[in-house]
């Protein structure tokens, strides 16, 4: 009975991209029933626009989670990338130059995280938590604790540009998601990240350069967070010293919601991106439902824990079952084995003794 229920739950969890998408649709319809304004074009456009930075964070986070790690420093990286790029652009430097510098900063933070986790073997949560603290501190020093405001209109207006009525940043996020998804499913090294999180020993045995891939995962996470930072600066138009605070929770929740396992080895970026859309939609729905926005984080947190707990329960259930099966297989073949082996014993022995006698 329990096995049956677990199997059904497992099936639901297996096709997580589809389940998550269904959840998103239900969310829109459900909230739409209460407040029809939620499902009009403008409101949907707002959600899409708002989801862009979460999508970037979630894409980067997916690499790290697949390897069985976690990166809680992304909020800090986003903040410092936003502050640096905004300051440079306000100072009149080339936008592309500013974006490049932000990306270098993000990648460097990721590189340090990756080396710490893969080579020095610091637990991922500690390494990236420490990094979060460092980066936050550096950001405050860099901005002198002040807001970076008065960004040029051209930079701000870029976030309003549309292609075929769809926000250009959102298109960028979707293209990135699709490209990364293609990489994961088609490229030779695409499965390496998940393989490492799935079974590290096995990954090493088939010749996967585990340390290198783990470092790359953190670099990509940092890189994606820095892109999210630039997008934040462009969308919001100013950067406060609180930019990016608590955003790592949203990113992790988005991935988990989209079916990425926190124990590694399982998940897709499409799922993570849908998860990011859901997180944004919930945020927006609360406004339409006139729920005070301070409930937002509690709801995100609850969702995160609920999904992780069910993931763990399912995982443990099937792992236990597999272990028991394995142990039983050992014991069960005994009767048969013993009989058969005894028979062969006699025959082998007699031939051997005969052979020796010659």
């Amino acid at each position: 009975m329990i096995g049956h229920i677990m199997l059904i739950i497992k099936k639901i969890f297996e096709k997580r991209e589809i389940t998550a998408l269904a959840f998103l649709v239900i969310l829109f319809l459900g909230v739409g029933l209460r407040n029809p304004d939620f499902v009009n074009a403008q409101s949907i456009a707002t959600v899409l626009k708002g989801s862009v930075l979460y999508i970037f964070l979630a894409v980067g986070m997916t690499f790290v989670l697949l390897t069985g790690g976690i990166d809680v420093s992304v909020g800090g990286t986003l903040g410092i990338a936003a502050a640096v790029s905004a300051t440079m652009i306000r100072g009149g430097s080339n936008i592309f130059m500013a974006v490049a510098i932000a990306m270098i900063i993000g990648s460097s933070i990721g590189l340090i995280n990756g080396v710490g986790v893969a080579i020095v073997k610091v637990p991922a949560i500690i390494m990236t938590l420490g990094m979060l603290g460092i980066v936050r501190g550096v950001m405050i020093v860099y901005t002198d604790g002040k807001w970076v405001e008065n960004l040029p209109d051209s930079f701000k207006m870029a976030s309003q540009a549309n292609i075929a009525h769809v926000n250009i940043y959102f298109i960028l996020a979707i293209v990135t998601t699709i490209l990364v998804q293609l990489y994961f499913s088609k490229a030779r090294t695409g499965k390496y990240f998940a393989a490492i999180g799935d079974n590290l020993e096995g990954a090493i045995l088939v010749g996967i350069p585990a340390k290198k891939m783990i470092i790359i995962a953190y670099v990509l996470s940092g890189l994606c967070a820095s892109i999210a930072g630039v997008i934040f600066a462009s969308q919001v138009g100013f950067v406060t010293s609180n930019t990016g605070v608590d955003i790592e929770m949203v990113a992790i929740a988005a991935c988990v919601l989209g079916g990425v396992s926190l124990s590694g080895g399982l998940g897709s970026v499409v799922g993570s991106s849908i998860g990011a859309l859901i997180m944004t939609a919930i945020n927006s729905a609360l406004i339409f439902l006139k729920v005070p926005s301070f409930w937002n984080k509690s709801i995100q947190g609850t969702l995160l824990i609920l999904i992780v707990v069910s993931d763990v329960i399912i995982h443990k259930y099937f792992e236990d079952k597999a272990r028991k099966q394995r142990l039983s297989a050992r014991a069960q073949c005994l009767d048969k084995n013993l009989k058969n082996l005894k028979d062969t014993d006699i025959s082998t022995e007699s031939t051997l003794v005969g052979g020796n006698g010659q």
Partner: protein
Amino acid sequence: MSANKSLMKLHEIYKSFGDNAVLKGASLELSEGEIVAIIGGNGAGKSTLMKILMGIYPLDRGEIFIEGEKVNMNSPSVALEKGIYLVPQEPLLFPNMTVEENVVIGFNENKNVLSGKLRELIKQLGWDISLSRKAATLSIAEQQLVEILRGLLREAKILILDEPTSTLTFNEIQSFFELMMDLKKKGIGMLYITHRLTEVFEVASHVVILRDGEITVSGPVANFTKEMLIKGLMPDNMVHAKTNSEVCTVDYTKQPVLKLDALTGYGFSDVSFSVYEGEILGLAGVVGSGRTELAEAIFGKGEVLSGDIELLGKSIRGLDTNEIVEKGLNYVPEDRHLNGIFAMADVRLNTTSSILSRLSKVFINRKQEKAVTQKYIDDFRIKVTGQDQTLKSLSGGNQQKVVIGRTLSSNPKVIILDEPTRGIDAGARGDVYKIIYQLKKLGLAILLISSDFEEINELADRAEVMYHGTNNVVLSKAEITLDALTQAAFGC
């Protein structure tokens, strides 16, 4: 060895982990179409040797030749490139990936080409395995097949099979052997690690015995009998005389302290035996024979499917571990680092941690705690600078003494010792043996689980030998010899 082309040669391989020399100049050769069976007791260095060949461990000294060419085997990718593939004992698949993804991962070739090759290979082998299934849904036997597919698709010329049959059922074993014969015909060389001597005669062309890090016996299988192999497995200058010449003083007319009645669970089945007051019952067997699973089930940590466990006539089946300890049964686990000790805490806390509830109402009675700790330090001659020394800084032998002390502080009637001297040096081993004798004299019933047959030989009043999850052989004190233990444990 044979006229066939030499595939691989290991020359005088040395490897130590810390002070522990695992391999002391092991040499091994494998030619085309040969199946070399490697046998040896636990800790003989079989796995280490294979991991060195696979580039997982670096070697300290020695040379590896592949097809006559010296190779610096410094990573698994080098080994894979040279056509070596290790099929590990427990398959190391990626449970969340499909069979096909599991097989083709790590290749440099085009995916479609690989996919075609894989399908061709499966057709050739006549296997019925769905490529789109997730690895997590496969049986162990099927997982093993996937591991072998991996090796074959890589066009491995050397397959290392590490106890492949230990998780297979009888029918699966037969088809596995047929597969091995097929591969042999194709000229693939196989190193076949096993614990089962019958299998050596069934499939292998050559046999080597690895003992204490050295190859002590090697040659074509036809030159050996099973008795010769058993002899070869045992240490040199074997002393049959037991050091404890005391007459067995166990009173078997009394009620047994611990009695198992057809106990069945995961990893063991239909196990029945009794342990009496003042008796050391040895539970021998090779790793994986189900002894630890059995002990954990007795201790309330593993599931019991059927049968009963009686402590002084009363069933303790289904009780929680703390209730079982309270009733008078305690367990010293196999891996003390994993399950036994609080490494960062001091000797005192480690000794008294299982009886803190007795020493305290709200706050701990320090005086009593100190007294209990001092008692065991004195009794067992534990070498410490003080009660507040951290356990981590003690030697393995002294750590083990602390763990045994803690177990005793709960005043048990039965104590289960799981591999009490593994990883302990010879001097401390003697001390632990003395402690076990002390416990026997105190009238405790002792269940001694050990893969070290000399230990069973020296200590046990009777021995039960586990093979494949059940105790198929009982040996009385007079019958216990290394010979008899080895035979029974290897299922002969």
